[in-house]
């Protein structure tokens, strides 16, 4: 059992039964000899049939019990069991192509200066609805425009040398109990430790998740708030500018400045011209978002770009409010910490299974 392999693929899942079969089948279809890699599925207390689906394809299935502690925790449990020299993390709703994992391995083999590589997002989402298309393209836009040569370690599909991962201290399961920005944070730490991190634009994976307006706003809210509260906006903006929060907030800043100028000038003008000013404000927001809308128009056509414009403004507003909330919470209460019982168990060093969330 102690034999080392070329690759360990860790798949953290939680209620992913509907997509997991396809995801694991796609991994098994990778152009890698079957005895050169292993699949480790870590089930984060699913209430569906994820475990039995996982057993159909995986070499190891880890069943976490109790309460769900998030993908960072699940990935760490998988990485601890991994026997591969390279550990790849693939989400339970991400389809890899047959050449994705072999090319990642080849890149890490050819380039000793690179320690972590992740795949970009395919412009075609797995779900057919409008919001999924919008979200997928939004992430694609950030990756295409700002993804090169930075600390962006994508959560969907990324491979990292095992030695580099353990030297960096694995994922930060102590602070991040929800799946949002923990991969970005790991990428930043890897770069900080002098490791090479690459987001490849040639390697593509398909995300199958079905997004609704509510789930998307929820994601944007959590990402923005965690970024402002735990990671630091400025620091992450320079380290991983391709993240979706920066795509949203970058264009918002000049738009807000224009709206603020309009509001100020209202005091000095004899007539308010409310409709005109609202029109100018909307035009300002649209103009600052023009690169995004042009990207959408190129990818899906002018109609899609036009239809997505109000949705984009709505998501930007959510992100802006969440960033402000994150800053306020950071100043008022400090960084995120687990609950008192978890801190207590960790302080005492209680040995139990599943293990208590570990401090880095």
């Amino acid at each position, binding site marked *: *059992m102690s034999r080392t392999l070329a690759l360990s693929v860790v798949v953290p899942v939680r209620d992913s039964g509907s997509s997991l079969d396809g995801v694991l089948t796609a991994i098994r279809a990778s152009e890698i000899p079957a005895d050169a890699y292993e699949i480790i599925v870590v089930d984060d207390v699913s209430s569906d049939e994820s*475990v*039995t689906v996982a*057993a*159909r*394809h*995986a*070499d*190891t*299935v*880890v*069943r*976490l*019990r109790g309460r769900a502690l998030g993908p960072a925790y699940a990935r760490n449990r998988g990485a601890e*069991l991994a026997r591969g020299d390279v550990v790849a993390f693939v989400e339970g709703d991400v389809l890899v192509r047959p050449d994705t994992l072999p090319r990642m391995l080849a890149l890490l083999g050819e380039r000793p200066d690179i320690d972590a590589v992740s795949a970009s997002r395919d412009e075609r989402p797995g779900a057919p609805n409008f919001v999924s298309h919008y979200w997928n393209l939004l992430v694609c836009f950030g990756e295409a425009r700002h993804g090169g040569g930075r600390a962006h370690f994508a959560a969907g599909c990324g491979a990292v040398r095992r030695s580099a991962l353990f030297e960096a201290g694995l994922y930060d399961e102590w602070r991040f109990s929800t799946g949002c920005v923990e991969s970005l944070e790991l990428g930043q730490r890897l770069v900080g430790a002098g490791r090479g991190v690459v987001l490849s634009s040639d390697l593509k994976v398909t995300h199958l998740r079905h997004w609704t307006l509510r789930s998307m706003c929820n994601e944007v809210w959590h990402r923005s708030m965690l970024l402002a509260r735990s990671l630091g906006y400025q620091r992450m903006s320079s380290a991983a500018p391709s993240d979706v929060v920066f795509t949203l907030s970058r264009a918002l800043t000049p738009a807000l400045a224009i709206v603020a100028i309009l509001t100020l000038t209202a005091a000095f003008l004899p007539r308010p011209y409310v409709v005109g000013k609202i029109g100018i404000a909307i035009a300002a927001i649209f103009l600052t978002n023009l690169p995004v809308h042009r990207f959408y128009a190129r990818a899906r056509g002018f109609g899609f770009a036009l239809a997505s414009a109000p949705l984009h403004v709505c998501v930007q507003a959510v992100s802006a409010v969440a960033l402000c909330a994150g800053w306020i919470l950071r100043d008022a209460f400090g960084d995120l910490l687990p609950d*008192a*019982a978890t*801190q*207590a*168990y960790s*302080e*005492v060093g*209680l*040995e*139990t*299974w*599943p293990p208590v969330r570990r401090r880095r």
Partner: protein
Amino acid sequence: MASTHGRRFFLRGIAMYRAVLDDTPGQSSRPTMESTRQVATDFTNPEAQRVGDANAADRPTGPRRTPRKSLIVVIPDNHVVSPEVVAESLPKTDDHELVDVIVACAGQPANLTAITRRVREVQVLLAPAGTSGEDLRELAIRRAPGDIVTLLSGAVVPTPTREFEMLRSV
């Protein structure tokens, strides 16, 4: 300094309190041998027949100190697993007896006796001939009590070539 000590003392207090509530998480919850020797029937698949005495899935699964491990050996039709491979997959230390070994096979594999002789307390799930490897895995994991379940697939039995058959007939 004093506040750090105070906080640590407070956290220790919470941990002890929670530990009592959780029914002493440090203690092992492995059942007695008497309870494991009860013969059980697999109701999930009426066609499957279980041989062996360990009803592992019915053991209590409370908090424990170390993860419980299961090893599932999957042997579909025309596949075989060497007993040595199974033994190698088990930990070499004293934890040997803590691993629940389940052999899930379709039909009657040739070397099942050798495996059961090599690995003690093995639980065998016999499914009808023709059951696929994936179905065997699914069947077995429903019975596996482990927190960490390793699945080991059998290798295809090499089919005799035409030349080999001709030589044998001569």
